[in-house]
């Protein structure tokens, strides 16, 4: 290995382990992409691209996405205000990123479509945990279970919509976006 390529390798390995200015700029762009997608689809309840983008960004950006998720959640709170759904975001989106990171070496579009669909289907159930805490704090564990269960049941039809949307978006967009990411990386 000559001196020049050795220096390049050092620089690359260093940049893999710490945040560069480019990383910070990329995180900003990623949040902008998520927010614009979210706004564009706001007329369609439970049809969203946030899951798709978080999966793709985790696959593309690796562990550095740990900064993206809290930054995205903070921006969401700043734009739309801090309500119950914001508390749900604190654990729901990090869970998706964690699951994606666990399976990051898998390259099948079908796998990611299934994972994204499962996440969309379970979204209401995951969010209902917040209602469990609220109900439990007011009337004990049984009240918490009742609150969470009724809230989850009422939203199951929308969880099906969420599942279908996530699945289809991944099937359609995974390959072109992966190709685009490979070109810019």
């Amino acid at each position, binding site marked *: 290995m000559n001196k020049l390529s050795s220096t390049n390798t050092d620089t690359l390995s260093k940049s893999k382990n710490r945040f560069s200015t480019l990383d910070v700029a990329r995180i900003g762009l990623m949040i902008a992409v998520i927010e614009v997608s979210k706004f564009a689809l706001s007329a369609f*309840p*439970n049809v969203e691209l946030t899951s798709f983008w978080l999966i793709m960004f985790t696959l593309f950006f690796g562990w550095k996405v740990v900064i993206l998720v809290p930054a995205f959640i903070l921006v969401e709170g700043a734009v739309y205000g801090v309500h119950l759904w914001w508390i749900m975001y604190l654990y729901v989106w990090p869970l998706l990123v964690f699951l994606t990171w666990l*399976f990051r070496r*898998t*390259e*099948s579009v*079908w*796998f990611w479509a*299934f*994972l994204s*669909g*499962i996440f969309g*289907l*379970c979204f209401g159930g995951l969010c209902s945990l917040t209602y469990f805490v609220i109900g439990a704090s007011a009337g004990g564990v049984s009240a918490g279970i*009742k*609150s969470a*269960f*009724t809230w989850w*049941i*009422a*939203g*199951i*039809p*929308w*969880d*099906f919509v969420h*599942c279908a949307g996530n699945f289809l978006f991944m099937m359609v967009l995974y390959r072109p976006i992966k190709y685009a990411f490979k070109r810019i990386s």
Partner: protein
Amino acid sequence: MEKKNNKKIVIGAVVLAALLVVFAAVYFMNKPTAGAGAKDITLEVTGSDGVTSDYSLSTDAEYLREAMDELSENGSGFSYEGSDGEYGVMVEVVNGERASYAEDGAYWALYVNGEYGQYGCDSQPVADGDTYSWKYEQAQ
């Protein structure tokens, strides 16, 4: 690698299919249901001044929103307005009084027989003899 991927795909497909079946079954076994037929109900409205108005209705409505629509159209004096959202109608105005959570933390709370309602008015089943109460409340 290819074999490993195929295994993950199969597991993903099976998990998704199983969850779809389980969720559908749980939903159809537990979704809010109502029986049809003549039901006598009472609707109460308590405004920000604490004054309560009572309305009686004999209805075949399955869900409370239909009963509220009947009441608002039969000259009882009851009226409401709301906006449709992801989880049904969000009631914002009752009997001309607006509750704005964004401005002062106020909202119209729905009670069923004195208990805090578990559903929105368009998924709250109507049962004979029940009392439904809209109360103007403010977040603490």
